[in-house]
C-alpha cells in the first residue's frame, strides 16, 4: 500500500479536532512559551546586588565608621543592622536575614593608630556557595581599597608621599555586553518549550490512544502506520514551530535579548530539533502504553536533560568528565549551543555544522527507531 497524503491529512485533522476540543490545554500550550520565557527572564538573575549584611562593630570609632562607609558605597551590600553583639550576627546568619556579618574588633582603631596589622572578620553564609563566592570577592575588594587608603594617609602623616598603586581592570564583556542573565538564559528556553510540546504532549496523546484502545481501531482502518505517525505528529510540529517564533519574539521585544544570527537558521535548526523530540515522544508512547508512565519517561529523557545537561543553565565544561561525554548523546545540547550562537554570537550558518550535523543525525536515527518500534508493535 502506497503512502497517501490524503489519509495522513485525515489523521492530522482528527488530531487537530482533538486538540481543539480541549481549549484549556490548547491555551496552556500556546501560552507555555510566553510563560516559560517570562519565568526564566524575570526569575533567573544570578548577579546579586544589595545583599543584606550585619555589622558587629565592637569598636564604634571614627575608623570603624569609615570602613562601614566603604561598604555603604558599594552597590553589592546593604547594611541592615549595626550592633555590638556578636550573637545577634550569628542569629541573623542562622535565620537567613543576613548573608554576611562583618566583625570589627574592639581594638580596631587603637591598632590602626599604633600601626601593625589588624584583622576584620567576615562571617559568610556559604550555604549558597555562589552568593558566598561573590560576597567574598566584593568584600575583599572593599577591604583592600580601605587598607590602601589607610596606609597612604598614614605615610603622608609620617612625611612620605606615596601614590596608591592600582590596576584598573577594564573588562569588556563580549556577546552579552551588560552581563544580563536573561540574555544567557532565554535562548535556551526554546529547547525547554520544544521538549515539552514535542515529547511530553505527543507521548501523552498517543499513549492515550493505546490506553483507551482507540489505537487498535485506527490500525484496523486502511491507514498505514507511517500515515498514522506523520498525521499524529504534524499538528504538534506546527504548534512547536509557532511556539518557537513566539518565544523568539518575546525574547527580542520584551527582554531585548540580542539576535545576531539569521532567522532562517533559527527556523531550520528548530525544525530539526522538533523532529528529534517528536520522534522521541512517539517512541516513548509506543514503549510506555499508559499515560502516567509515558509522561514520567518523557520528563526523564527529554525535559530534564534539556534543563540540566544541555548547557542551558549549567555550563558543560564544569561538569565531571564522564558526564561531559554523556551530554554528547543529549540532542538538546546541540540545539542549545546553536541557539546561543545564533542569538548572542551571530555565528554564520556554515560554522554551525558541528552542532547541526549531530542534530540531523539524531533526527534521522530517532525517526527510524520510532517507526520500527511502531511497526513491530502493530504486527
Amino acid at each position, binding site marked *: 500500500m502506497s503512502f497517501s497524503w490524503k489519509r495522513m491529512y485525515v489523521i492530522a485533522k482528527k488530531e487537530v479536532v482533538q486538540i481543539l476540543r480541549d481549549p484549556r*490545554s490548547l491555551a496552556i500550550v500556546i501560552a507555555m512559551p510566553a510563560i516559560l520565557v517570562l519565568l526564566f527572564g524575570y526569575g533567573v538573575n544570578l548577579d546579586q546586588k544589595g545583599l543584606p549584611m550585619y555589622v558587629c562593630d565592637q569598636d564604634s570609632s571614627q575608623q570603624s565608621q569609615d570602613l562601614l562607609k566603604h561598604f555603604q558605597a558599594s552597590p553589592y551590600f546593604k547594611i541592615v543592622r549595626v550592633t555590638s553583639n556578636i550573637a545577634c550576627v550569628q542569629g541573623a546568619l542562622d535565620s537567613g536575614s543576613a548573608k554576611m556579618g562583618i566583625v570589627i574588633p574592639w581594638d580596631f582603631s587603637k591598632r590602626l593608630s599604633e600601626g601593625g596589622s589588624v584583622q576584620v572578620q567576615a562571617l559568610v553564609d556559604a550555604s549558597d556557595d555562589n552568593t558566598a563566592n561573590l560576597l567574598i570577592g566584593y568584600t575583599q575588594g572593599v*577591604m583592600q581599597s580601605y587598607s590602601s587608603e589607610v596606609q597612604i594617609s598614614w605615610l603622608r602623616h609620617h612625611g612620605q608621599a606615596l601614590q596608591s598603586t592600582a*590596576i584598573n581592570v577594564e573588562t569588556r564583556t563580549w556577546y*552579552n555586553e551588560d552581563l544580563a542573565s536573561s540574555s*544567557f538564559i532565554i535562548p535556551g528556553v526554546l529547547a525547554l518549550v520544544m521538549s515539552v510540546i514535542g515529547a511530553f504532549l505527543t507521548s*501523552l496523546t498517543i499513549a492515550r490512544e493505546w490506553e483507551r484502545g482507540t489505537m487498535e481501531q485506527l490500525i484496523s482502518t486502511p491507514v498505514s502506520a507511517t500515515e498514522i505517525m506523520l498525521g499524529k505528529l504534524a499538528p504538534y510540529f506546527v504548534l512547536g514551530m509557532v511556539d518557537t517564533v513566539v518565544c523568539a519574539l518575546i525574547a527580542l521585544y520584551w527582554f531585548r535579548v540580542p539576535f545576531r544570527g539569521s532567522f532562517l537558521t533559527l527556523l531550520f535548526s528548530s525544525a530539526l530539533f522538533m523532529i528529534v523530540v517528536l520522534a522521541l515522544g512517539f517512541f516513548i508512547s509506543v514503549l*510506555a502504553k499508559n499515560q502516567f508512565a509515558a509522561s514520567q519517561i518523557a520528563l526523564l529523557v527529554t525535559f530534564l536533560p534539556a534543563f540540566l545537561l544541555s548547557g542551558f543553565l549549567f555550563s558543560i565544561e564544569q561538569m565531571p568528565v564522564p558526564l561531559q561525554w554523556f551530554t554528547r548523546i543529549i540532542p538538546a545540547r546541540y540545539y542549545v549551543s546553536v541557539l546561543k550562537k545564533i542569538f548572542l554570537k551571530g555565528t554564520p550558518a556554515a560554522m554551525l555544522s558541528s552542532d547541526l550535523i549531530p542534530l540531523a543525525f539524531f533526527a534521522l536515527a530517532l525517526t527510524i527507531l520510532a517507526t520500527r518500534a511502531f511497526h513491530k508493535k502493530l504486527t
Partner: protein
Amino acid sequence: MMGRLKQMLIKEFIQVFRDKRTRFILIGPPVIQMLVFGYAATYEIQHVPTVVVDLDHSQQSRELVSHFTSSPYFAVREQLTDSRELGDSIERGDATIGIEIHAGFAHSLLKGETAPLQVIVDATNSNTALIASGYVSQIALDFAQSYQQNRINRIAPQLTEMIPTVQLETRPWYNPELRSRWFFIPGIIGSLTLVLVITLTAFAVVREREIGTLEQIMVTPIRPAEFILGKTLPFFLIGLFDVSLIAVVGSLWFQIPFRGHVSILALGAVLFLLCMLGVGLLISTMSSTQQQAMVTAFFFIMPAITFSGFGFPINTMPQWLQYLTYLSPLRYFLVVLRGTYLKGVGMDVLWPQMAAMAGFGVVLLALATLRFHKALD
C-alpha cells in the same frame, strides 16, 4: 468507616504496584535524577580556558601572568603575541577569558599611576563571566597590593614594621569549602518530591475519571471524605518513602552533612507533602483528562520550582515577583531542608516555615475537598 477506608487503601496500593513500569517509576527516576542533578548542577568555576597577551614583557607583567597561571580558576591555554589573535580565540570559543597587558604596564606602576589591564570575557554564560571576572579583579587587586607593599618597603624601610594594614579573614559558615553540591542537593530533594507527588496524585484521580471507574466507586457506599482519604493516604506514604529515599541517596552519595535534627526535617517533609497532595488533588478536580492534568501540573510545577530559591536567588528578582515567591510551598521547605542539613538550626528558627506550610496544607486540602464534592454532584 474504617473498613471501607481499608478496602480503598488496598485497592489503591494494588493499582500502584501492579504495574511493573509504575513500580519502577516510583524508584528509578527519582534516584537517577538525584544523581544526574547532583553532578550537573554547579555554579562553581574551575580551569576557565584563558589566553594571555603580554605586550609589556616586563618583570611585573610576567609576574602578573604567573598569578593567573597558578590560579586554579584559570587554565592559561596559550600566551599569544598579538591582541588580534586574542579576539580570534574567544570568537572561536577556544577561550572564555582573554587578558591583555599593554606595553607600559610596568612603567605606569613605577610612576604610581593606575595601570590598565584589558580583559575580554565571553559572556554567553553570564554567570561564568561574572564569577570569572571577579577572580580576575581579585588577582589584579592582590598584585597591586603586594606591589605597593614592596614600594613602601623600598622608600621607607624603617616604617614597614609599623604601617597599619587591615586584613580580612573570611569564614564561610555552614559550607566551609564553598561546594555547590552542598547547596543544590537539599534543594533537589525538595524539587523532586514536589514533581513526583503532584503528578502522581493528579494522575490518580483523573485516571479513574477518564476510564470511568470513578462513577463506579461513587455508587458504592463510600463517602467522598473516605474516598479522598483513601486516594491521598497511599500517595502520602509513597511520597514519604520517596522523600526518604532521595534524601538518603543524595546525602550518602554526595556526602552532604546533616547537622540538624531528623525529626525536624521529618516534620517539614510531612507538612510539605500535605501541601503537595493538596495541589495534586486540586489539579485533579480541575482536569478531565490525564493530558489536561499533566499540562496543568506542569503549569504549577515550573513556577513553583523557579521561584522557590532552589537555584536562583530570590533577592535578585523584581520586587513584585519576590512577593509571589511566598506562594510557593517549596520556598519554605527549602529553608527547612538547608536549615537542617547545613545550618543545623531548630524550631526556634524554622517555626515560621513550618507554620506557613501547615497553613498552605490545610487551605489547599480544604479547597480540594470542597471542589471535589462539587465535581461529584
